[in-house]
């Protein structure tokens, strides 16, 4: 036991890496066992699954990361989903009309995402309405705009020249790595990241120390907009088209991507938020793909939804109570000590 603890102390990095890798690996293993035993299929059945996994991974990774930009600072931006729609539909179609291909779609969507995000940020720092409430209003407006744009057709990527690259595995890996590098830099090593962390701790102190919290918030929103736009493009590449929604339905994208974010932030305690969220997204994607295999034995997508969200619930129960176990242990030790002291005193008194 002590040897093991000693080893753990010595190889912190190794242990942290193992922890980070272990979670998605465990999810995969569990799904693989379940899938193979019930349907005879593997979770990763063919190259198609790998492509799907990677595309969905980069999509959910970017979206969760985008959410985290603001969420970590106590700003739950309910409009990120509508920013995604706006950015992809306006930017993507602009790129397509200029015949810029997949890369163009990606770049233009990102740019539009930054504009969309920055506008929300601008309103936020000026109106100072609670982010969640602001998000509600913004999503109404953004949804309306993205719906009316492009003749209500949304963004259609299937069969468009040059968009095949968005399904190219190497390209996807490249983009994922690039985003990881950029975001790690932004979050962890850049002046922006340092300031952001300070604001995350205490915005008043940060403000008093001369950090411009307003510019920082604006940048956070801008980065979030860019990230969800990337997420939207890859999602569209998978689903072929992005159909505009109304009635605050874009919120559901936000909510469903909170799962990878929650897992990611939990994993992040042993690494950093970027790697954590990647591992978190990977875990969730394994779960979704694994569940999809049950379609073969007649499980409806409602059932799959049920299971996916139940897993989320169980995870949250664990996450919010993991420290309780230690607490109970400590408490037991303390009670024992108290009993001993009491006995000792009684002995002395006697």
């Amino acid at each position, binding site marked *: 036991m002590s040897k093991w603890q000693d080893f753990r102390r010595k190889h912190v990095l190794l242990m942290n890496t193992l922890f980070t890798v272990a979670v998605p690996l465990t999810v995969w293993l569990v799904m693989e066992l379940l899938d193979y035993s019930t349907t005879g*299929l593997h979770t990763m*059945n*063919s*190259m*198609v*699954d790998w*492509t*799907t996994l990677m595309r969905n991974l980069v999509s959910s990774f970017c979206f969760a990361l985008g959410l985290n930009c603001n969420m970590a600072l106590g700003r739950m931006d309910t409009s990120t989903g509508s920013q995604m729609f706006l950015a992809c539909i306006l930017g993507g179609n602009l790129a397509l009309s200029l015949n810029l291909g997949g890369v163009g779609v990606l770049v233009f969507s990102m740019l539009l995402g930054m504009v969309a995000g920055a506008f929300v940020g601008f*309103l936020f720092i*000026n*109106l100072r309405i609670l982010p969640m409430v602001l998000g509600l209003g913004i999503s109404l*407006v953004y949804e309306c705009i993205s*719906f009316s744009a492009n*003749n*209500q*057709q949304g963004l*259609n990527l*299937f*069969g*468009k020249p040059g968009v095949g690259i968005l*399904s190219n595995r190497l390209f996807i890996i490249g983009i994922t790595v690039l985003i990881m590098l950029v975001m790690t830099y932004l979050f962890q090593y850049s002046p922006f990241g340092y300031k952001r962390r300070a604001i995350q701790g205490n915005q008043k102190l940060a403000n008093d120390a001369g950090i411009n919290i307003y510019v920082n918030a604006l940048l956070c929103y801008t980065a979030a907009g860019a990230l969800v736009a990337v997420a939207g493009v890859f999602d569209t*590449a*998978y*689903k*072929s*088209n992005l*159909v*505009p929604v*109304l*009635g605050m339905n874009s919120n559901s994208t936000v909510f*469903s991507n909170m799962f990878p974010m929650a897992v990611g932030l939990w994993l992040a305690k042993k690494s950093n938020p970027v790697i954590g969220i990647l591992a978190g997204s990977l875990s969730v994607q394994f779960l*979704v*793909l694994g*569940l*999809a*295999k049950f*379609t*073969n*034995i*007649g*499980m*409806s*997508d*409602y*059932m*799959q*939804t049920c299971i*996916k969200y139940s897993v989320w619930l169980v995870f949250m129960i664990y996450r919010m109570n993991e420290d309780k176990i230690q607490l109970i242990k400590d408490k037991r030790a303390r009670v024992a000590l108290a009993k001993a002291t009491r006995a000792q005193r009684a002995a002395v008194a006697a």
Partner: protein
Amino acid sequence: MNKILKRMAAGILTGALCLTAFAGCGSTGSGSQGGSSADGETTGKKFVIGVAEAQANDEVTTRRAYFENFIAPTYNVEFIFSEVLKDDAAVKTFIENCIDSGADAIIDFKSNSSQMARLCEENGVVYTVQGIPDMAPDLMEGEFPLFSGWSGANNDHLADLFRNWLEENTSADGSEGFLVSTSLASQGNVQHIEVSRAILEGLQEKYGLTYEQPIEDLVYVSETTNVANDKGLLITLYPGSPNKDTWLPGISSLLQSGKYKMFLSSGQTYNQTATVVNEVEAAFGIDIKVASIAAFSTTLDTAFSTLDPNGNPSVDFVTVKPSSVLNASVFAATYNALNGVIDTACRDENGKPANFRFNMISISSPEELAKTKGWDDAEAGTWIAGKEFVDQMLVTTNPDVTAASINELMASVDVDSIAEMMG
């Protein structure tokens, strides 16, 4: 100081947003009204018709263009379009609001219910529905003098289209495996129910199958189901909402079993599934034939012009709704009822509310698609159901019109007749 400036900027900005929004709607609103009064050829009361929409897709966009740009000015009526109505309660709210705005009739693309008919009845408003009578027995049996009937696709014909195509494109023994996406049929989506049923009937006729369960029950299944049949053919029903993030992985997972070479969809999903189908084809080296519902659009053009890894178009067969014909028929039913001939023009021979059926068009090759160029083109304003066609359906221009004559007219619509009409 700086703060005040920022605050002012914020205020101005919000104001500007507000103004833009209002200006936007103002111009569009007045534009359509101005157009209608200028072009109105008939005198008398200008009817106001509320249109309750369930979705916001290109069919709805086309319909709005058809009604607003063509019907409204030509026949001196005015339309109020709904937002996307989530459920029946929303439809009810919309109808009430229309009545308060002075609407004379409601065309309902969302619900198909006696409740709405009753509401319209109480307020003296004509009620027209897109859908099938079987779904609403109350409406059929009840006393609704102002209910002008149902319009929708002719399912027998649709089944024929599928059957014919299946006849030609499937093997004799049916060994290729059929994956049928019933989409939202399990949640009551009328179109998805109709098409799913047509597909199952088509397969039944082609192979002379006996299903162990009645087709009526099968289309409503809410989980992936292998249809048990006497010939042991692999027919799998896959229900679910394409908007759910578990839907597409499910399709992908099924296709990856390699057992399906025929993918038939009751919804407009050929576009959404294209990437998945392509990737499975490439990875497994098989050719999956795709049949789906579609509407005239650039998406459809792309689908037929994009080749899959086997050199075929990425979609093999689509049935297209000549949407202006549907729109013309709901309008005609409503308009005739408003003009007081509901008993002749909107009732069948038994005196029951009429059931107007139009025929879908099938397209199975880029060549056939090319023929349909310019049909129901909202931008060009070239409609299949043009003035001449609609005139034949209205009592004001054709006093002898009956439900039967309208149905006859619509039954005559096929690719060739349209081509002739469109010149």
